[in-house]
C-alpha cells in the first residue's frame, strides 16, 4: 500500500520522497506521449498509416541511411543532448543549493528523465520501423514477419537501464540517505546508460549501411556528411564518458585527485582510438572538437546563462593529435596494436597536455604528489581503453578477433579499471590531526581565515589545502596561500552564514580529510549547527561525513553490499548485452562493407575495397 505523509509547514528541504502532485503530472504527460507513440507504432506495423515511414524515409534521404536508422539516430542525438544538459545543470544545482526536496522537485531532473526516456523510445522506434525487410544482416527475429536491428535493441536496453536507475535511486536514498555525489551507484547508472547508448547508435548506423550496401542503392549524402555523423557519434561517446569527471570539472571532487587523469585518459583511449579507426583521417581530432564545442556551449548555458556554478572541461586535443599522428604509421593496419600504443601515448604524453591544461582551466590543478601513482593508474587504464576502442572499431567493421581474444581483452580491461578505481577510492584520515581556524569578519556573513595545521606534516606536498563553501546559493573554492610550515590563509572572503556549508579540506597523497568551519542546523536529517567561531580547533574527519551530511552511515554493511551487488549485476548485464550486439554485428557482416562510406579508413587499414572510387574528399 502506498503511504503518504502530509507535511504541513514542515521544516525546510525534506530529505526524501516525491511530491504526489509532481508524480501525477509527470505520469499524465509521459503517459500521453507513450500512448501516442504506441498508437503510431501499432498503426505503422498494421499498415493503417504511412506517416511514420514517410517521415523516417525523408530523414533517411538526407543522411544516406534507411529511415529505420536515420530517424532513431536523430532522436538519440537530441535526447542525449537534452539529458546531458539536465545532468550538468542538476550537478550545478546540487553544488550550489544542496539536496533536492524530492526526486521530481528539481527542474533539471525532468530534462534528464525526458532525455533518457526518449533514448529508450528511439531504440524502440528503430525496432518498430522496419517493414517487409530484414534490417541488416545482424537483425534479431521478433516474429516471423518482424525483424529488429540489433542496434535499436541495444539503444533501448541502454535507455531502459538508465531509467531503472531512477526509482532505484529513490530506494537508495531511503535506505542510505541522500548521497549528494555524482558517484552514487544509482547515479552512475543514469550516466552509464546514456553514454553507452552511443555504442548501440554506432551499431545501428553500421547495420543501416550494411543493409544499403547490399542493395546497390546509391547513398544520397555526401561523404563528408557521413564522416561527420560518425565523428559526432564518437564525439558524443567522449562526452558521455566525460560526465563521470563532472565533480572535478566543478572543483568539488569527493574523491582523490589521482582519479581525474585516469578518467580522462580512459575516455580518450576508448573514444578517440575508435573514432580514428572507424572514421578515418581527422576523425579523432573531429571527435575532440565536437566534444569541446558541445560541452563548452552547455557549460556556458549552465554557468553564465542560468547563474549556477560553471563546469570546466578536459581538453582532449593533445590526445587526439597523438592518435592522428600515430595513424600516420603502419601500425594503423594492426588495430589492436594501434589501440594499445594509442592508449600508451594518451596515458603518458596525453596526460602531460591535460596536466598543463589543468593549470589553465581546471579549478584544481594537478600536483606533483600524484605523479607516480597517477601514471601507475592512468597508463594501464588508457591502454585497456585503447584496446577496447580498437575492439569496438573492429566489431562494427566486421572483423573482431577470435572470441577468446576479444573476451580476454574485455575482461582484463574491466579488471584493470576495477583495480585502478579501487585504489583511487582508498583514502585515509590522519589520526589525531586537527586544524585551528581563525576567522576575521569581512562583510555580512563573510570571513577571511587563517589556518594552522597540527601536525604540519598533514600537508607536506598537498594536492590542495582549501576552503570550500557550497550549497548556500553558490560555490566558493579558495585554494589557501601557504604562509609557513603548516600555516595558511585565505585569498578571498568565504561565506560562513545562512545555508552555506563551509569546510577546510586537505588532500595530500592518500590523505583526504576535512574539518568543518561552519555548518547550518538541519532538522530534516537531525544535524546540529557547527557555528563559525572567531577561533576554533577541530579534528579532521572523513570528507564524506561533511560533504554528504544526508548519508546514513549506520546502515547495515550487508544491506550496502547487497544493494551495490544489484547495481553491479544490472551494469554487467548491460555491458554483456552491448558486447553481444557488437559481436553479433561483427560475425554477420563482411569486412569492407563500409568502404563506400569511409574509403580512406578502409583502405589505410588494409580492408578489402568493394569497388567505387576512393573519395579523397572524405577526410
Amino acid at each position, binding site marked *: 500500500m*502506498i503511504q503518504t505523509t502530509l507535511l504541513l509547514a*514542515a521544516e525546510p528541504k525534506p530529505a526524501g520522497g516525491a*511530491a504526489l502532485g509532481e508524480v501525477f503530472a509527470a505520469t499524465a504527460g509521459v503517459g500521453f506521449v507513450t500512448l501516442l507513440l504506441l498508437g503510431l507504432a501499432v498503426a505503422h506495423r498494421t499498415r493503417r498509416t504511412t506517416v511514420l515511414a514517410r517521415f523516417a524515409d525523408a530523414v533517411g534521404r538526407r543522411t544516406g541511411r534507411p529511415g529505420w536508422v536515420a530517424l532513431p539516430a536523430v532522436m538519440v542525438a537530441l535526447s542525449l543532448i537534452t539529458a546531458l544538459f539536465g545532468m550538468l545543470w542538476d550537478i550545478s544545482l546540487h553544488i550550489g543549493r544542496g539536496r533536492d526536496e524530492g526526486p521530481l522537485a528539481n527542474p533539471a531532473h525532468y530534462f534528464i528523465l525526458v532525455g533518457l526516456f526518449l533514448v529508450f523510445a528511439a531504440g524502440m522506434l528503430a525496432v518498430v520501423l522496419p517493414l517487409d525487410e530484414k534490417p541488416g544482416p545482424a537483425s534479431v527475429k521478433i*516474429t516471423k514477419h518482424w525483424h529488429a536491428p540489433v542496434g535499436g535493441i541495444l539503444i533501448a536496453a541502454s535507455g531502459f537501464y538508465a531509467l531503472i536507475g531512477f526509482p532505484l535511486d529513490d530506494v537508495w536514498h531511503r535506505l542510505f540517505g541522500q548521497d549528494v555525489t555524482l558517484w552514487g551507484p544509482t547515479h552512475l547508472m543514469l550516466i552509464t546508460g546514456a553514454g553507452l547508448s552511443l555504442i548501440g547508435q554506432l551499431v545501428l548506423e553500421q547495420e543501416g549501411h550494411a543493409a544499403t550496401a547490399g542493395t546497390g542503392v546509391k547513398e544520397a549524402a555526401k561523404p563528408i556528411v557521413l564522416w561527420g555523423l560518425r565523428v559526432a557519434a564518437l564525439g558524443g561517446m567522449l562526452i558521455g564518458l566525460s560526465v563521470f569527471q563532472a565533480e572535478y570539472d566543478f572543483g568539488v571532487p569527493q574523491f582523490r585527485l589521482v582519479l581525474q587523469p585516469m578518467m580522462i585518459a580512459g575516455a580518450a583511449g576508448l573514444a578517440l582510438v575508435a573514432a580514428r579507426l572507424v572514421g578515418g583521417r581527422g576523425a579523432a581530432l573531429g571527435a575532440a572538437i565536437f566534444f569541446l564545442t558541445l560541452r563548452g556551449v552547455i557549460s556556458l548555458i549552465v554557468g553564465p546563462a542560468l547563474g549556477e556554478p560553471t563546469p570546466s572541461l578536459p581538453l582532449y586535443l593533445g590526445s587526439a593529435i597523438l592518435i592522428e599522428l600515430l595513424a600516420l604509421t603502419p601500425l594503423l593496419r594492426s588495430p589492436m596494436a594501434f589501440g594499445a600504443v594509442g592508449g600508451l601515448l594518451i596515458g603518458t604524453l596525453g596526460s602531460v597536455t591535460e596536466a598543463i591544461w589543468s593549470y589553465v582551466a581546471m579549478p584544481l590543478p594537478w600536483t606533483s604528489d600524484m605523479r607516480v601513482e597517477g601514471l601507475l593508474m592512468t597508463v594501464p587504464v588508457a591502454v585497456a581503453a585503447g584496446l577496447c576502442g580498437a575492439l569496438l572499431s573492429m566489431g562494427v567493421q566486421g572483423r573482431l578477433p577470435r572470441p577468446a581474444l576479444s573476451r580476454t581483452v574485455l575482461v582484463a580491461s574491466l579488471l584493470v579499471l576495477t583495480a585502478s578505481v579501487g585504489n583511487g577510492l582508498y583514502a585515509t584520515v590522519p589520526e589525531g590531526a586537527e586544524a585551528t581556524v581563525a576567522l576575521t569578519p569581512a562583510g555580512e556573513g563573510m570571513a577571511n581565515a587563517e589556518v594552522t595545521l597540527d601536525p604540519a606534516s598533514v600537508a607536506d606536498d598537498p594536492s590542495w589545502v582549501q576552503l570550500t563553501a557550497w550549497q548556500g546559493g553558490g560555490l566558493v573554492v579558495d585554494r589557501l596561500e601557504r604562509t609557513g610550515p603548516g600555516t595558511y590563509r585565505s585569498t578571498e572572503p568565504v561565506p560562513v552564514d545562512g545555508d552555506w556549508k563551509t569546510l577546510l579540506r586537505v588532500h595530500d597523497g592518500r590523505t583526504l580529510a576535512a574539518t568543518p568551519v561552519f555548518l547550518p542546523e538541519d532538522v530534516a536529517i537531525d544535524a546540529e549547527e557547527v557555528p563559525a567561531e572567531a577561533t576554533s580547533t577541530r579534528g579532521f574527519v572523513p570528507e564524506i561525513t561533511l560533504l554528504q551530511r544526508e548519508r546514513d552511515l549506520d546502515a547495515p554493511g550487508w544491506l550496502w553490499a547487497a544493494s551495490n551487488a544489484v547495481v553491479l549485476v544490472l551494469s554487467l548485464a548491460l555491458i554483456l548485452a552491448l558486447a553481444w550486439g557488437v559481436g553479433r554485428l561483427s560475425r554477420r557482416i563482411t569486412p569492407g562493407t563500409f568502404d563506400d562510406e569511409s574509403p580512406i579508413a578502409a583502405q589505410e587499414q588494409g580492408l578489402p575495397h568493394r569497388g567505387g572510387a576512393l573519395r579523397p574528399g572524405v577526410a
Partner: protein
Amino acid sequence: MTYDVVLAHHPLVTALPFVVPACIVVGLIGAIIWRDRREDRVDR
C-alpha cells in the same frame, strides 16, 4: 521557507512517470515474441 506538500513515501510511486511506461512497452514486445514462438511450436 515552509512547505505544504504531500510526499510519496513509496519508491514505486516515483517510478510511475517514466519507468512504468518503458516497462509496459518492454512487456508488450515480450508478449508478442512469446505468442509468436508459441504459434511456431503449434505449427510444428
